[in-house]
């Protein structure tokens, strides 16, 4: 899923300081799961923004609306009535949702209430870890289901680099060496021989060639 983090309240308050009628747009998708973008969080943030404004002698009216997913046009369309009443929209959807809002409602300023971080999964309650760099050229069949492009700090394709200590990467952060994990996994599977073959360097061209598209079948173009 897409992992997001809430922007600081100070940032959000500054962003919305000129607004008198604000729509706070929640998303029941990934950002709600992250605990920052659901309707409950949107209600709380709207309350706090109103209090903040009132304490500074300003009047802020807020409206909270949520949709199933902000990254799909049919759901984004549900915001139409509320958009008509708002001076600006503070979205708690991810960067995709924010852009879909901006595209559909070109006359309403779209303000991001969250920072969109990465594609990850839950590793502990309330803790997400990046597991996919969305490079568009999956090599998991060669690496025991562990992505070196994402989980190796150096993103190398023919590891290990020799810089790990005690099973952890020499680059800070306390991450296990991805290539050690790959080796252990392949060995357990009896497939360590796969590593004898030196593969080509990562092809990042598809990840950096502008917005990508994917067909209905899910296959890459």
């Amino acid at each position, binding site marked *: 899923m897409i992992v997001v983090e809430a922007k600081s309240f100070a940032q959000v308050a500054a962003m919305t300081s000129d607004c008198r009628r604000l729509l706070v747009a929640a998303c029941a998708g990934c950002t709600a799961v992250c605990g920052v973008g659901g309707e409950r969080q949107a209600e709380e943030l709207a*309350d706090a923004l*109103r*209090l*903040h404004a009132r*304490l500074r002698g300003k009047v802020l009216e807020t409206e909270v609306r949520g949709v199933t997913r902000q990254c799909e046009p049919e759901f984004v369309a549900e915001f139409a009535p509320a958009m008509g009443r*708002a001076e600006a929209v503070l979205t708690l959807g991810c960067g995709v949702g924010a852009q879909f809002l901006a595209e559909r409602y070109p006359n309403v300023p779209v303000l991001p209430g969250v920072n969109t971080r990465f594609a990850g999964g839950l590793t502990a309650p309330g803790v997400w870890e990046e597991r996919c760099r969305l490079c568009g050229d999956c090599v998991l069949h060669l690496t025991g289901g562990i992505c070196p492009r994402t989980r190796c700090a150096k993103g190398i394709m023919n590891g290990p680099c020799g810089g790990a200590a005690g099973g952890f990467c020499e680059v800070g952060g306390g991450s296990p060496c991805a290539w050690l994990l790959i080796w252990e996994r392949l060995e357990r599977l009896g497939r360590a021989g796969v590593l004898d073959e030196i593969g080509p360097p990562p092809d990042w061209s598809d990840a950096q060639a502008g917005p990508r598209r994917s067909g209905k079948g899910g296959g890459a173009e």
Partner: protein
Amino acid sequence: MNTDPRIISFCCYNCAYAAADLAGAMRVSYDPRVTIVGVPCTGAMEAVVVLGAFEEGADGVFVAGCLDGECHYKEGNLRARERVARLRERLSEVGLEPERLEMYQVSAAMGARFGEIAAEFVDRIKALPPSPLRRGAAVKGGMSR
């Protein structure tokens, strides 16, 4: 200095609300400006309820839940404690003194303690200026929350 504080107390029905009741039976007096609102469990009390109390002009809010390990819903009181801690930070960000919000834990048998808590919190709020949100009209009109 606030001589006429308005204080809202959200009390768990299973402990603090009963403690407040017991305080009454024990003839323990506490400031009548503490308005008690019973809740099924402090853990189920939404943050917007607390913020809403401040928005409506409360000078102080205290949440009172069960003792550690005694929540009828296992850990509702612990969740409430975390929520209150987070909301205190939010109050600070918004521009209100975080001391205006507090979490207490009592059992149904602690009537006298409830009286102490109420008195202690009232004294704390009295030492602060009145909430700036008490003056002026509500500003919700026009759009829904």
